[in-house]
């Protein structure tokens, strides 16, 4: 097992390398001058040139690339163009808020999405199924920021139950949790739609399998058939979809943080995009890539646990 984990980690290195290269190229190839963008249109030619020199933008592209990779290998994500701070400092400050939000949303999405998916699959083509499908399709159509706004309007503006914006401080847990509820609910409900649809289609496949029929024929109670036989088999394809789910979660979290004015990676990235702070943008992209690669490795490992047919050697 340990050998398998090490092998999987080693295999991730070329992937990460390729991702970093693509991010680097994407930012360089698209026309536009990062120095000009950072200083604004009113900056003098001289100032722009000085900054270009400082950032090494006048060097040939391969020199820039080698420097960039060397910095990354030393764990240096670069200095932001706007605040001139190490990018990691800014990221480190907001990262816990994003992780907190993602974890809370994940719990909500799983707790609601999986049962809804199972029920709609079992009651296929019934009114319950129909309603569930429409609701989850609506959830997939709902822009994350709009659901957030609806929740703010209802629970903050109308009812005044919960604060609408900010994330609070971790040193004041009560306030922190209070500010977490609405964003987590907003993100969680959207991802719930995703999970419910996934679970439903997986369960539909599993429920028509021979071993489920056999289990029923043996006279097992329906809930035993569903949970022990069908859902357990369904877990395998569901786990393999977790990677896609995390990608969707990251995307929606960006908009959720924006609408709730909540500090986090997404909000930081939006700010960097607007100010055209390329280094910060690049640093956040690399971090996202890192998270996604790690999640995929974990999924891979869980896979070997839930499906004994998958062998690691």
């Amino acid at each position, binding site marked *: 097992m340990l050998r398998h984990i090490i092998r999987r980690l080693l295999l991730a290195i070329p992937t990460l390398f390729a991702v970093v290269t693509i991010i680097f190229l994407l930012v360089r190839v698209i026309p536009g001058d990062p120095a000009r963008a950072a200083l604004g249109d009113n900056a003098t030619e001289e100032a722009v040139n000085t900054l270009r020199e400082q950032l090494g933008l006048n060097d040939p592209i391969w020199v820039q690339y080698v420097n960039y990779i060397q910095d990354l290998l030393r764990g240096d994500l670069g200095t932001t163009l706007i605040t001139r701070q190490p990018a990691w400092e800014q990221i480190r400050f907001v990262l816990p808020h994003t992780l907190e939000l993602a974890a809370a949303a994940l719990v909500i999405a799983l707790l609601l999405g999986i049962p809804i998916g199972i029920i709609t699959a079992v009651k296929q083509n019934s009114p319950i199924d129909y309603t569930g499908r429409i609701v989850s399709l609506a959830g997939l159509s709902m822009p*994350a920021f709009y659901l957030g706004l609806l929740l703010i309007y209802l629970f903050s503006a109308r009812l005044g139950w919960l604060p609408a914006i900010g994330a609070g401080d971790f040193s004041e847990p009560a306030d922190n949790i209070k500010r977490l509820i609405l964003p987590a609910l907003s993100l969680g409900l959207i991802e719930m739609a995703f999970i419910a649809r996934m679970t439903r289609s997986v369960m539909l496949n599993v429920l028509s399998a021979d071993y489920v029929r056999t289990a029923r024929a043996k006279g097992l109670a329906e809930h035993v058939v569903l949970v022990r036989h069908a859902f357990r088999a369904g877990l395998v394809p569901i786990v393999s979809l977790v990677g896609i789910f995390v990608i969707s979660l990251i995307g929606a979290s960006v908009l959720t943080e924006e609408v709730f004015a909540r500090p986090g990676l997404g909000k930081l990235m939006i700010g960097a995009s607007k100010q055209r702070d390329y280094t910060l943008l690049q640093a956040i992209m690399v971090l996202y890539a890192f998270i996604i690669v790690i999640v995929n490795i974990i999924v891979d490992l869980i896979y070997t646990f839930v499906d004994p047919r998958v062998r690691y050697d």
Partner: protein
Amino acid sequence: MAHAATADVADNTSGGPQVKLVSQRQRAWRTFRRNKSAVVGLGMIIFVVVVALVAPLIAPHNPIEQSTINRLAEPTSDYLLGRDDFGRDVLSRIIYGARIALLVGVTSVLLGGILGTTMGIVAGYFGGRIGTVIMRVVDILLSFPDLITGLLVMAVLGAGTFKLIIAIGLTITPRFARLAYGPTLSIKEKEFVEAALALGQRTQVILSRHILPNIAGELLVLASLWTAQAIRLEASLSFIGLGVPPPTPTWGQMIRDGTRYLTDYPLLSLAPGVALLFTVFAFNLVGDGLRDVLDPRSR
């Protein structure tokens, strides 16, 4: 899909078996028509398209004409949804907003669809090292959320309608490439492709006449689902402030501008959101319906 006519036994009510010739396209349409939610979705799309086309005729007012004395005016019979913080008619802006939503949604899917399908077919058909490299890049691009790729490209390009189409088109490209790649790999080994090769047909003809029609159905499903995503993405980027610049009315930006008055005047944000949700939902319904037509197992 091929258009070969196949025999289909019609309902046998008047004795004697009646055999009717039905083309695959007709049969697909029949299956689609039986799917109620897909038909409703199609109707909703047609409604939005018509509204966008005849916007100047049905919009009660000029969507960008400002009137500062009437800012944030309550709804009246003349201004059904009231006026925004520049005194502009909210209803007219929502009607005109359909134009940008559809323009960006459809053209970016066309752009990404053509580019991506070409990449996927070429990578699949020719294979080799170039094919592998193309698909590796595609897979990496696929591992980023569409919003984040869109944000990055918009940050580099700067705001503007045309740039927004490019940014969204680029995020869509790898999805079509991935979809076109797999089937191309298996179809190129089929006998009819071999036959075409033996007949001395040019590669271009083989790709466009023999491979493309066989994946056209799946491409159509993806196009419909991604039009929904593209419209949502356009609204998201406009909401963030990196989309179509003002004063052009877009739903995303209207929602953003309205957030400042959410407590006292929620209509400003909530009304354009309904239009947005309606449109995205419509394209998703149709995409889902089309998928059921093509793959009856998923129903």
